[in-house]
């Protein structure tokens, strides 16, 4: 019994190690190759020893319309504002569903349940035509404002709020003369902090990684987001510049990997709490 347990444990451990290597290796190759010259990569594409060509790869990369800083700033603006709008207004909408007794409450809740799975991608043709008609295709706001209505997040916030928010707190604040808007901002938002933090992480990541919507809407190079910058690496101009391509990929992935490893405890716990697949 004891021996078979140790055996089983060893096998499981080995499988886990193999899967871990599988998770790390592609990114490791990417990072190492970003420091190697194209000639080195052509001789041996797999190496775990960094070389000294980081600077020259960077020169090649930036020399061909790849501007990681612009992409980084645009992605940052979009992701931060999207996250703020989505979490704030989703909490507000959840509050409406939990606290107030009004006629359309159940209808709104049922409606949110019904539409929360519908992906934005499916309605992109109409969205594009609408935005194009009002000449807003290169405005970042068109990528940000839709976040105000995030049905899946409203659903999550409501689930969290029902046990977390004591209605008597709201009642007593009203008796003390607090206005409704003030109660929400000063009393309800702080109570919802853990749920907001969890959702903020996922909202930020999915907005940061979003390729489809920006690809459809943005044609101005100065407005490009990081995923669009990445998609340029697939183009002919980088066909033989292996080192530069790996560097471009590294520049987009490394910040995410570092942020993830720092926040991994919260992120894994957050997934477990039931995030909705973006």
């Amino acid at each position, binding site marked *: 019994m004891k021996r078979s347990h140790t055996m*089983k444990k060893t096998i499981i451990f080995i499988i*886990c190690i193999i899967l871990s290597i*599988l*998770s790390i290796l592609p*990114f490791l*190759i*990417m990072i190492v*190759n970003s420091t190697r010259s194209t000639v080195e990569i052509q001789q*041996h*594409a*797999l190496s775990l020893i960094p070389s000294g060509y980081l600077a020259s790869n960077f020169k090649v990369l930036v020399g061909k319309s790849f501007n990681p800083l612009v992409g980084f700033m645009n992605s940052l603006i979009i992701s931060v504002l999207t996250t703020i709008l989505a979490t704030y*207004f989703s909490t*507000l*909408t959840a509050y409406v569903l939990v606290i*107030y*007794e*009004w006629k*359309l409450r159940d209808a709104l809740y049922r409606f949110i349940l019904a*539409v929360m*799975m*519908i*992906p934005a*991608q*499916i*309605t*992109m*043709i*109409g*969205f*594009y035509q*609408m935005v*194009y*008609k009002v000449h807003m295709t290169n405005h970042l706001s068109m990528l940000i*404002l839709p976040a*105000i*209505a995030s*049905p899946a997040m409203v659903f999550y916030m409501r689930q969290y709020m029902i046990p977390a928010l004591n209605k008597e707190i709201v009642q007593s604040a009203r008796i003390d003369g607090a206005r*409704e808007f003030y109660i*929400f901002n000063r009393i309800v938002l702080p109570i919802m902090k853990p749920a907001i933090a969890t959702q903020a992480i996922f909202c930020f990541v999915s907005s940061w*990684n979003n*390729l489809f919507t920006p*690809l459809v809407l943005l044609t101005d190079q100065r407005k490009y987001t990081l*995923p669009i910058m*990445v*998609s340029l*690496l*697939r183009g002919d101009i980088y066909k033989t510049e*292996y080192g530069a391509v*790996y560097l471009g*990929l590294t520049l*987009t992935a490394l910040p*995410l*990997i570092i942020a993830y490893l720092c926040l991994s405890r919260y992120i*894994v716990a957050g*997934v*477990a*709490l*039931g995030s*909705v*697949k973006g």
Partner: protein
Amino acid sequence: MKARHSRYAKYGYIFSIPFAAAFVIFSLYPTLYTAIIGFTDLQGIGTTEFHFLKDPFLNFRTILTSPTFQTAFCNTVKIWVLNFIPQLFLALLLAAWFTDRRFRVPGEGIFKVLFYMPNIITAATIAILFNALFGYPMGPVNDVLTRIGIFSAPYNFLVNKNIAQDIVIFIQTWMWYGYTMIILISGILGINPEIFEAAEVDGASGWQTFWLVTLPNIKTILLYTMITSLIGGLNMFDIPKLFLMGGPDNATLTTGVFIYNQAFSGAYMYNRAAAASMIMFVIIVLASILLFWLLRDRDEEALKKLQRKREKEMRRACRVGRKAEEAEK
């Protein structure tokens, strides 16, 4: 009591205005607009004017009979099914190991973090990274295989239809099994531990416990994972688009890429792309309805039924009582 509620009820309407307005402008209107475009002749870059077709369903028929769309749809379903089976299998296995009460896997926390990591990285980056890894003649994979002598010469993986598709399937599995595992672990940890204790007392083996206790108890979560994954899978775009642009010979073309290519390249056929979108929309709505139905709160429903029954009995009792009173008088 009633009066106090209605005093605050107006805030219910006021505070839901931002959500409602944003939803109408950015979701509802585009959805209806997409549906309408599906019935029109809207084509060509920069065009916004359109006329309804004499034959309203022409675009839908063209799409449904188009061999390219059929290929794209079959690819999408195939890639999803073949990625979901190993993904679920691996996730279940790992979830069972990581929640086993008789032993702890050393380094469990680190493993979870690493298995989930590919999911957080930009899919666009991953697609192009794998394109480089399988590069020809000198990608890292070819380098390894020729160096250890499995291949005598580098092989061009990316022009082989089956291999290209398999790589997309692998990438999807690799990106998502960690996520599914974490969801399943939280589902298993949510099961009442007394059930496991009872199974242990009854002398159930680890395998029996997993098959007869764990699995039936996470049925809802399994279904949830499956349907969210299905909806995500039906919209697969980033990986197939950037890995091989749908090629070789449409082997990695998905419906998402098909719709994008119809509308934003070549002849800019917005109308056909819209029709294809609506077809996918219907399929996704059906999947959502299924999800909604499966996740409905059975306990609450049973409770409501019971309450109605009780009220009925009470009314009947009252009636009987009143009649008896009247009779006494």
